[in-house]
């Protein structure tokens, strides 16, 4: 069987395309960077099994982070492909785009959430640091090779990463549906709603949400920057070979591969 093929979507202003492609390849998939322009035929996306919308400032984040890219005809196509069960991963700006399209959380045919400017008592605006996220989802989906309650070390790098909503009952529903995949926690998995454990003030410490079906994930932290030991803050006193080994976040991509292979079979 051929390995699954991922389209790494590059919108004007995206800036994580190379490392996004690399991590897909490291997990055993094939990946192409697709440059989005007005002459692109959305049908070309049909040949791909999954879509990775990476970080950056798509269309300069005019109006709101991700708002313009969400209206791009390419996203309509990706929405269509997602309905077929293909995998869509949105990281950072990609997560903002998925929320702006309404695919996430995707329970109603409208935008139900927003990624608001961080609230952080120390660093206002853009904030880049290492945090911990706890794997909370108890249902099998396309991304969860990491076990329930497993804690992952991962960097955040954004100015607008605070998951929020005006719908009071939404979080309950997301919990019930097992759509909340990762929550900001401390090293031992304890949830504290305050900074620094919660780096941006996100509602219910939400770091990542899937759609109800479990084949679309919007995640604010960057798993592609934490997929090898050398990328983690603990590279010291380890051999080169040890540092080149996969770090826990690679499981997210390996999980995508397994899910897609199952689907393709």
């Amino acid at each position, binding site marked *: 069987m051929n390995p699954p093929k991922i389209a790494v979507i*590059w919108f*004007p*202003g*995206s*800036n*994580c*395309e*190379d*490392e996004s492609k*690399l*991590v897909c390849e490291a997990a055993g998939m094939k990946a192409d960077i697709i*440059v989005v*322009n*007005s*002459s692109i035929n959305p049908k070309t996306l049909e040949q791909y099994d999954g879509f990775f919308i990476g*970080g*950056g*400032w798509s*269309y*300069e984040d005019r109006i709101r982070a991700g708002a313009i890219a969400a209206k791009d005809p390419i996203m309509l196509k990706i929405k269509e492909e997602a309905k077929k069960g293909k995998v869509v991963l949105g990281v950072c700006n990609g997560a903002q785009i998925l929320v702006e399209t309404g695919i996430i959380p995707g329970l109603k045919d409208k935008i139900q959430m927003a990624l608001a400017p961080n609230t952080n008592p*120390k*660093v206002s*605006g*853009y*904030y*880049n*640091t290492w945090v911990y996220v706890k794997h909370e989802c108890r249902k099998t989906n396309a991304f969860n090779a990491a076990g329930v309650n497993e804690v992952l070390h991962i*960097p955040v*790098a954004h100015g607008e990463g605070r998951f929020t909503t005006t719908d009071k009952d939404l979080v309950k529903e997301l919990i019930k549906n097992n759509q909340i995949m990762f929550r900001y926690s401390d090293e031992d998995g304890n949830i504290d709603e305050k900074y620094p454990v919660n780096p941006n003030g996100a509602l219910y410490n939400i770091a990542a949400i899937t759609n109800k079906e479990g084949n679309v994930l919007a995640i604010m932290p*960057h798993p*592609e*920057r934490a*997929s090898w030991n*050398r*990328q983690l*803050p603990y*590279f*010291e*006193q*380890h*051999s*080169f070979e*040890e*540092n*080149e080994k996969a770090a826990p976040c690679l499981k997210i991509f390996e999980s995508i591969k397994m899910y897609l292979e199952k689907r393709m079979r």
Partner: protein
Amino acid sequence: MEDKELAEFLKKNAISLKLNEARKIVELIGRNPTITELHIFNIQWSEHSSYKSSKNALKMLPTTGPTVILGPKEDAGILKLDEEYGIVISHESHNHPSQVVPYEGAATGIGGNVRDVLCMGAKVIAGADPLRFGEAFSENKSVSNRTKYIANQVINGIATYGNAIGVPVIAGDIYMNSSFNDNCLVNVVHIGLIKNNEIIHSCAPENSIGYDVIVIGKPTDNSGFGGAAFASLILDEKNKENNRGAVQVPDPFLKNVLIRASYRVFEAARKQKVTLGFKDCGAGGIMCATSELGASGNMGIELNLNEVPVSMQNLPSYIIACSETQERFCWISPKEFTKTILDIYNKEFELPNVAEDACAKVIGRVIKDKKYILKYNNKIVCNADIRAITEGIRYNRESEEIINKKASGPELIEPESFNTPLLDVLKLPQIASKYTVYEHYDNTVQGNTVIRCGEADAGLIAPLPGKKYGVALKVDCNPRYNRVSSYHGAVNAIAEVMRNIAAIGATPIGLTDCLNYGNPEKPEQFWQFLEGIRGLSDAAKNIFLKGTTQPVPFVSGNVSFYNGSANGKSIDPSPIVACVGRMEDYSKAITLKIKKSGSGVYLVGARKNELGGSAYYELFDELGANLPKTDFASERNMIYGVIDAINERLLLASHDISDGGLIVAVTEMILGGKGAGKIGASLQLNDGLKTSALLFSESSGFVMEIEDKNLAAAEKAFAKYDVDLIKIGETGGDYLIVNHNDKEVVNLDIPALRDAWMNGFGDAMK
């Protein structure tokens, strides 16, 4: 024209050429220049573009050696990583623009520096930002408020621009003092990765007659016209409004797209084996880029200015030619490849949809005749020998030694306990943790960062995924040392930057210098500049490239004069240097944080009574005179010993001794880069020096954490270079205790240390 008439004419046309310079143009081209030509020479002969005062002196710097692939000739230098790969580096200043409009000034500083690295054909992989601001705690509230405003805006400008284009910041520093009240310094360093056989030169290729000249990027407007000339004047607060027009407008979004589209052109050119010329439009705009592309290829250039995409109507010819509109480059391409270039920018990456009227367009061609010809509205507005335009002029400026009358330090009373002085030193803005700044920059994008800002003495990336190489980067220069002595200040900058690179285990392979000085027309200030170069040169020539007796070479640099205040005083002379280090195996690198309880704390570099220029003296508003003096042989030996010991994995942590001296070095090792350290240390110092000098003297050296099991091997590694390891204490506990000759002089718990060090910078910016 009579002198008086000429002077009035120049003034009316905002030309800052001196009378004799204007007359020299007539001599050069054999007739009276056109107004366009006059503006061209005005820019090309500015200090910023021509290096007219500095060129002769810069020859003192060593620029060759086994690690050099390309010295300081083009937009950026290139150092050898191995037979296959090189590291491109450029170092620039954007001081005056950042003082006038700090956000835009700093952002365009990043933009311009990134262009320099990119236009060599490289992938831009990391950056560093050394910054100098005025005093944060001035008695004059309006001074400190302005300082904080400028500092915040500069940091925001760097973050907004650098984060958007996706280049991690891995090093930087910040100093604040009153000499920078009217003139901040914003220096920028970027490095890129390139294959050694894929370098694109800033030069028209051989036999390129008839090749197209293509401009890409933002449509030209009148922004930044005269920026080069503006950089060559002392800033005067009164003229601030007039100066704003000389600052460019940044567009990081467009730059993000231009970078990626240009990578695509590199790829296409490699596949089709086409040789191109590529240069960024910086100072002097299209004129400077195209004339230098032509002249360095021994060709002429002919442009039709009516073909240049513009966003404003009725611009005069000299503005189209010379404006410093941001986000533009020029290509020289064979006709048959032109369509590929135009299609990549205009169709695949759709520049016209990214920014209004942005595009790639042919504006002229390479000609055989070595002329620089500009046409506009069917008229020839410039027709001069191309070399006359690019060659520039030179001055031998006069210099006059400044005799430092104060030859000794102040006599201060030694306190009983050094707890308070230590906490006060930790709070100084240049020493306190800058994590709130670093966390504002993206330092993990591209996924290759190994050591982030602040975690160790230098930043480290592993730029080739799957390969062992590590590339280290660091910047340095202590303004207070330079206030005491321009020579020793410069020597110390080189010694410290190399120590910083060594402290993580990397070997220094090359340097850049950004020479920020005062007014070269003033003999004392020009003397400071000459002394600085002498210091840089002596240090680079004597702290040899490891394994050789050759200098560590300078491969790129920049000179920024006229930094001072309107009353004629210079800033603290600031030869800010950057150093690139190479590691065979990045996984052997170490940070400065203490790792284990019960290991030994060791020192190399004996403590001396060298408190001149120290942070300790700053507490008492004293400068002192006895600066740390660099003993080149001992400096080399310590650096080589540390590199070897780390690469043999014998050290757990290492930190160079500089600002704040031994005691600050140990404190920072306890706290670690993010202030999260939990393991303390106790030191027993037996030394005849007075306690203040022992703890706070900034004499060169390293502090290291070594486990007992590795001690013998570590001693051997250092013995190879005749360096003795001095044991000064043990790690453990949750405090810092220091005994000097059996008397307790410091006893502080970690939370107290953390509080001072982590909040000092934030308090200064409040």
